[in-house]
């Protein structure tokens, strides 16, 4: 990932995407599911930001919120999603009409997304080519012939053998890895500034997974795009991330650059996650560490810090009452935890009042 860093140094240090305290709730008949309950992230040009967390922690909903494709009854209830467009102007995606023209021009054109299951993210009854050309024709001023040529060169770029034949193939005729490559070709066909990858390798076998990761890294180097990578695999994070956000129950419990998160984790949840990685170099035959308890039911959100029922460092009468705010420890390393005192967290009553 070294070249990415140098590119960043050369470019201006401005953020491409800035998500500020976004909350996305699902208004179901049974009650409100607070899938995303205050997430902040900032992604610079050419960088890779990894969002990690357990299933159901709101990673995917965060990604979908950025692209405004949260399925109903989900809605962004508050927060800002500032995105710097190609022409240099900043736009708040959270304010756009999710069916409107403005967001549609950004989708696929400036921000693209690839999904967890390449098996089902391609239409079963349309050719690969029809779907790539659709994206090209939507966003670029080209003829059908030119779009077809571009589609072939995109398939070639993502390493699909015999690209012009694959163009007329259907998704069921391709393997999982090839389908994900085709999805990447569709996503990158219009040279987006930002690629959102929602667990793109989870459904693939390990070898294919490594190939796809390499492919994304290569394409990122070539184009200088930013990548928002969602995963629950810390091994992947260590490999590709510049910055990391750890999420728990819709919250960004800790965020910072990849070295800080891996070598100096502050939040008990981050530490617990890192301890849960199996290591083959450990000499003692200790049992693999696992975080106690399970993720609470969405309707049964704990008061105070959402992690406190599972936390080893639980402070009675504090963690279950005080909702920890985001505090910055050093640079952009932030954490939401009462173990790291700020002026406010010393007086719980005052915190409750706000």
């Amino acid at each position: 990932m070294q070249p990415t860093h140098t590119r960043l140094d050369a470019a201006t240090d401005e953020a491409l995407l800035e998500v500020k305290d976004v909350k996305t709730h699902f208004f179901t008949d049974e009650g409100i599911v607070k899938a995303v309950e205050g997430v902040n992230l900032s992604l610079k040009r050419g960088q890779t930001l990894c969002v990690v967390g357990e299933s159901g922690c709101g990673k995917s909903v965060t990604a979908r919120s950025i692209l405004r494709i949260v399925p109903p009854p989900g809605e962004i209830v508050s927060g800002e999603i500032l995105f710097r467009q190609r022409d240099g102007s900043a736009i708040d995606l959270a304010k756009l009409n999710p069916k409107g023209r403005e967001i549609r021009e950004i989708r696929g054109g400036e921000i693209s997304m690839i999904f967890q299951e390449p098996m089902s993210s391609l239409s079963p009854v349309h050719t690969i080519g029809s779907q790539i050309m659709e994206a090209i024709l939507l966003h670029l001023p080209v003829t059908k012939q030119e779009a077809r040529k571009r589609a072939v060169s995109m398939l070639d770029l993502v390493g699909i053998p015999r690209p012009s034949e694959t163009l007329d193939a259907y998704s069921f005729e391709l393997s999982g890895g090839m389908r994900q490559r085709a999805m990447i070709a569709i996503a990158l066909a219009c040279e987006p500034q930002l690629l959102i990858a929602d667990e793109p390798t989870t459904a693939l076998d390990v070898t294919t997974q490594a190939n796809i990761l390499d492919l994304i890294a290569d394409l990122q180097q070539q184009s200088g795009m930013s990548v928002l990578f969602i995963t629950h695999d810390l091994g992947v994070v260590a490999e590709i991330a510049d910055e990391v956000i750890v999420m728990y129950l819709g919250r960004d419990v800790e965020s910072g650059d990849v070295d800080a998160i891996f070598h100096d984790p502050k939040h008990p949840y981050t530490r617990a996650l890192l301890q849960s990685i199996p290591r083959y170099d450990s000499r003692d035959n200790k049992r693999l560490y696992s975080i106690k308890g399970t993720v609470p039911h969405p309707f049964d959100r704990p008061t105070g810090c959402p992690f406190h029922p599972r936390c080893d460092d639980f402070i009675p009468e504090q963690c279950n009452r005080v909702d920890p705010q985001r505090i910055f420890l050093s640079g952009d390393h932030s954490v939401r935890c009462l173990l790291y005192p700020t002026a406010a967290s010393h007086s719980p009553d005052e915190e409750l009042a706000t």
Partner: protein
Amino acid sequence: MIWYIARRIIYLIPTLLIISVIAFAVIQLPPGDFLASLISKAEETVDQAQVDALRERYGLDEPIYVQYWKWISGIITRGDFGDSFEWNRPVSDLIWERLGLTMVISLFTLAFVWIVAIPIGIYSAVKKYTIGDYLVTIIGFIGLAIPNFLLALVLMYIAFRYFGQSVGGLFSPEYIEADWSLERALDLLSHLWLPVIILGTAGTAALIRVMRANLLDELSKLYVDAARARGLSELKLLFKYPVRVALNPLVSAMAWVFPALVSGSAITSIVLNLQTTGPLLYRSLQAQDMYLAGSLILLVSVLTIIGTLISDILLAWIDPRIQLQ
């Protein structure tokens, strides 16, 4: 594709063979032989020579497989389905026009059902759990719940009372026995709307539910989100992807319309006095007019099989996944 069609046509041969055996078995099922019922119904005494001639012609003294062979070889080689006892005419004279009219009504009803049900089903799925969806659902269930013949009576009353239209039948009185002409065809079209609406109501209601359920399944699929993430507008997205996929099962269900319309609509056809195969089949079964009944069953089955074949070929044509399976 050509191989697929050829294979399917080859599969037809044994199916048709089995169906002809079953249809013939239906002829033979009632106790006694049908000459007995002919003689018992005849007003003057039937002379023995005529009975013997008939016995000879149908081979009634011969074993069943010989009788079957005579019947089926008559159909295959000469198109001779035997005679109707009740009508005292060859079966083939009676059925062709009725079969044609049945086909016309079936096709119009099918078109009516699709044209009405698919847009409503799409609306109902896209606007899930809105007032519009509930309204459509309620109307749909009412349409499903009302028996066709009752709807026929109500609509006939309305057409007669408020529009003064001659209702019932497929033709105005002056055209019933006339030869085919442009005027007769136009007269048919002007009478067709009532039976088409009546026969189509229940099917429309059912198809709205099927379309809604199919589309709801597809709308939540990932490929829809992926297309949305490409920047496609909601309307184009809807018709290019989920609607397209949701229509496939409907195409394969198309063939069911034929048997339902031919046999299931018999009562409605009687109420409406339609010259279709339904009432003819009903009466022939009551009168133990077995060659007529058997031939109708055979022909309706053949039509159904052909309908299935057509819908299978259509499905293979529109759904690229089919041929490989």
